[in-house]
């Protein structure tokens, strides 16, 4: 098996790339894609430690995270469609109708 530190490094790299995407992009769809990248990074960590310890329970948690990602994507994209219908934009910094 590859040393566990390399898996952690891969996971952190994907997490950092996802955070950069969430913070710097203006398109909400790509922000959601970056969140999917972050959730994937977590899954890599869980599965790698599950393999190291020899217990399958880490994979169960990864399945729950995938469920969560699916729910989040469905609701998030529904919100984007509803917002685009009202304001004709997908840019995050123009979504300010809740701002006082």
């Amino acid at each position, binding site marked *: *098996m590859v*040393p566990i530190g390399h898996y952690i490094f891969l996971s952190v790299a*994907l997490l950092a*790339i996802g955070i950069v995407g969430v913070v710097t992009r*203006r*398109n909400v769809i790509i922000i959601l894609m970056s969140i999917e990248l972050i959730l*994937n990074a977590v899954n890599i960590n869980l599965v790698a430690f599950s393999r190291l310890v020899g217990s399958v329970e880490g*994979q169960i948690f990864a399945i729950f995270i995938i469920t969560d990602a699916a729910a989040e994507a469905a609701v998030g994209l529904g919100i984007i469609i509803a917002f685009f219908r009202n304001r004709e934009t997908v840019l995050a910094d123009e979504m300010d109708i809740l701002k006082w």
Partner: protein
Amino acid sequence: MLDQVVFYFFAALAIVSAILVVTRRNAVQSAIFLVTALLATAGIFLNLNAEFLFIVQVILYAGGIMVLFIFVIMLVNLDVALHQVQFNRQWFVALIISAVLAAQVAAAIAVSRRTLYTMPAAPAESLQPNTERVAFYLFHTYVLPFEIASILLLVAMVGAVVMAKKRV
């Protein structure tokens, strides 16, 4: 040996395509590279003897969620958005957050290096047969979280339909 070659190949593929997801201007190109990154992650799962999770990743992420993304990208008018500025001026904040995160994890690895690297990996047979073991834990030990997840999916489905409906 083959094990390591496969891991480094998929790891490099995942990181390169993740960077391309974040930096492409066109959202459709970002979606295509996101598929590549998710499939590379699936390959890493297969390399880690998690066959069930591999097939779940391919079907659910690369199949289901990506279709949803492509669908919304096609619904939302991109021709206008493509000519607008795609990045805001928060590169500095993003770099600081990433650097702090990297330093934190590097410190954690450095502190626990002795136990982390000397701990022998469990034999690959301890995860086999994979689907059977996953099913046993999912329906035996974690049956309550499993049911809660089903309610979560139901709520998300209703929420998505209500959000995307034309008139509430």
